[in-house]
């Protein structure tokens, strides 16, 4: 294993890592505030991908990419993802606020099934693999004989900007203080005059919106969407959130990138059949050495 051979694998892992990080942040924030592992989160990502597909298909002529369209579709999709997450919270999780966490988790699995089979039964979407309406140009640059496209660079940049923005909101604004207060002690936060239901809604909106961003960028990158794609990606993103220290934004980002890179290096160095073993072996090792995850210290103190 030489360094020059590993570097392209690491870079390749950044792209998968960027998508995982975006989805992981939603998992992590919801867990932080409700102690709920929202198994429907991966399906928010999937539904958002279908929304962006339909919007882009409606405005695209041929397969020529129009970046203006991609940008507004991206923004609308983020809002749609956020609204979907918020609605699910309002309709399913809020009425169960006093129920045992395990019951809510089962409800989350139910939501996941409803969303998957809902998409399956919409005629325009269905069970087939749908080609994304636009294909990004392959223009880019070469490093050491390996070709990277500008789209790939933009995708990683978008993920970095969005996650930094969310981190800033959570850690540097009044709103973020309110979120952390609700996460720490919901009853006390209510007594301090914080509208906890609104804060929880907002957390779901942010998580859903980031999943929407991941959906648009990854569909653009991978070029096809399917109604089952949310489940496996969601599971990986959940793993990433645990690895980074579930409950905090920076941890989710680090966990996402790390898992993406580990899978990529695992594939590149040992073969694809070893990738998951390599990545999940690293998860076990992480949890063994640091049971709260890489950046999970704060969670431990709080709990």
């Amino acid at each position, binding site marked *: 294993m030489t360094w020059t051979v590993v570097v392209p694998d690491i870079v390749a892992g950044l792209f998968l890592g960027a998508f995982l990080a975006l989805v992981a942040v939603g998992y992590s924030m919801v867990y932080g505030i409700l102690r709920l592992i929202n198994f429907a989160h991966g399906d928010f990502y999937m539904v958002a991908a279908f929304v962006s597909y339909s919007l882009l298909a409606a405005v695209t002529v041929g397969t020529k990419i129009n970046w203006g369209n991609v940008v507004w579709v991206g923004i609308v999709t983020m809002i749609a993802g956020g609204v979907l997450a918020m609605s699910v919270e309002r309709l399913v999780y809020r009425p169960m606020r006093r129920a045992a966490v395990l019951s809510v988790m089962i409800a989350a699995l139910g939501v996941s099934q409803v969303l998957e089979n809902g998409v399956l039964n919409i005629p325009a979407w269905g069970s087939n693999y749908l*080609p994304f309406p636009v294909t990004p140009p392959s223009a880019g640059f070469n490093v050491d004989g390996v070709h990277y496209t500008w789209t790939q660079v933009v995708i990683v940049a978008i993920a970095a900007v969005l996650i930094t923005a969310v981190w800033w909101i959570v850690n540097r604004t009044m709103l973020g203080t309110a979120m952390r207060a609700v996460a720490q002690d919901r009853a006390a936060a209510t007594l301090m005059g914080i509208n906890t239901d609104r804060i929880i809604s907002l957390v779901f909106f942010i998580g859903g919106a980031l999943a929407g961003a991941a959906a648009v960028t990854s569909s653009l990158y991978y070029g096809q969407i399917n109604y089952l794609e949310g489940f496996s990606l969601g599971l990986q993103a959940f793993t990433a959130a645990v690895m980074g220290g579930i409950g905090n934004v920076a941890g989710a980002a680090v966990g996402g990138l790390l898992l993406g890179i580990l899978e*990529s290096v695992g594939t590149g160095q040992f073969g*694809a059949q070893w990738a998951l073993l390599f990545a999940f072996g690293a998860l076990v090792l992480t949890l063994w050495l640091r049971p709260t995850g890489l950046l999970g210290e704060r969670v431990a103190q709080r709990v």
Partner: protein
Amino acid sequence: MRIKSTTCLTGVAGVLLAAAFVAIPSVAPVASAAATSSSTYLVGASEPMTGAEAQAGTEIYDGELLAVDNINAAGGVLGHKISLVEEDDACDPQTSVNAANKLVSLGVQAMVGGYCSSAAQPAEAIYARAGIPNIQASANSSTLTQAGYHNVFLVDPGGPLQAQEAVGLFTKVLKTKTLFIADDQSTYAVNVAQLTAKGLARTSVKVLPVEAIPSTNVDFSAVIQTVRTDKATAIYWTGYFAQAAAFVRQLRAAGITIPFVCADGAVDPTFIKDAGATANGTYATISVLSSFLTGSSAKAFDHAYASKFHAQPGPYSAYGYDGIYALADAAKASGSLAPAKVIKALHGLKFAGLTGEVSFAADGSRLGAHFVVLEVIGGKYKLAPQQPTM
């Protein structure tokens, strides 16, 4: 705190386990047991109707329906109208076993269907115990005939012939120096990949270690790195079509232009749609399909299919069609619907099907079909100008 977090993780494990069960979708059978009467010939059809392979499963089932329509319109089998009972196997071993048990308990007298070898395999024992013909339309791994069941028949010619065609393509037509073979860890794909690697062992083609890519994988960048570092000059993908499209798209985006060859699991209009322009110039090994057969019966099939289902037949629809005809012809030949007699007749069957002459070897594998190489030209599957057998 430790205790608390452990309980939570156990809970998570429980939920994940629950997810595995919840994820099994179920589809109500088209006909119920109540529909059975003395004048119907009840035939089960277990196929993926949900999940990633739902499209292919539906196309096979539609091919079967068409054959059933034709046979029933001509008076049925020995005066009995065929009634198909459809059951979803979701291309999943557990679901497939449930489907098989359900079909047997409904009292079907034969099974015609199947797409995924990994789903077909565990169900074999159930149909064998029930003593009914198990005609696999399109599941075709050579592992299916190795268990030695007397009632298994594969309409799709399967792994060994396909591997032989691939060996011919890489040695004679493409004159490949270094070949990268990848499968998706499914029974059939692994079978074709291994047989091809074995077949090439005594040739000048250098075969890299076969890469087994999980079927949920959509990111091929690390795999593409391996293709680049190992200086592969051609790729053989033996998995299904959805990943094939993602693979070839990302391969071309990375600036690698070496020949990309699919096995028949990836031959599907969706592959061309999803891969877009990058599908052009790719090859595929597949047994002769109805759409590449000339002659009036193939044309009539295409026409009838299109007018009934408002879609072109899928790559395996004709196997479903021939599977039903194999059963009906065997029943007619034996003069009885009794499963044991039909099985016996299937062993001696020979008729001209859509996919060539249909007859079965002693182990149940298909005889009388042959493979060809397709090339995607201008967004359509065409017979490749250069065939290995010429």
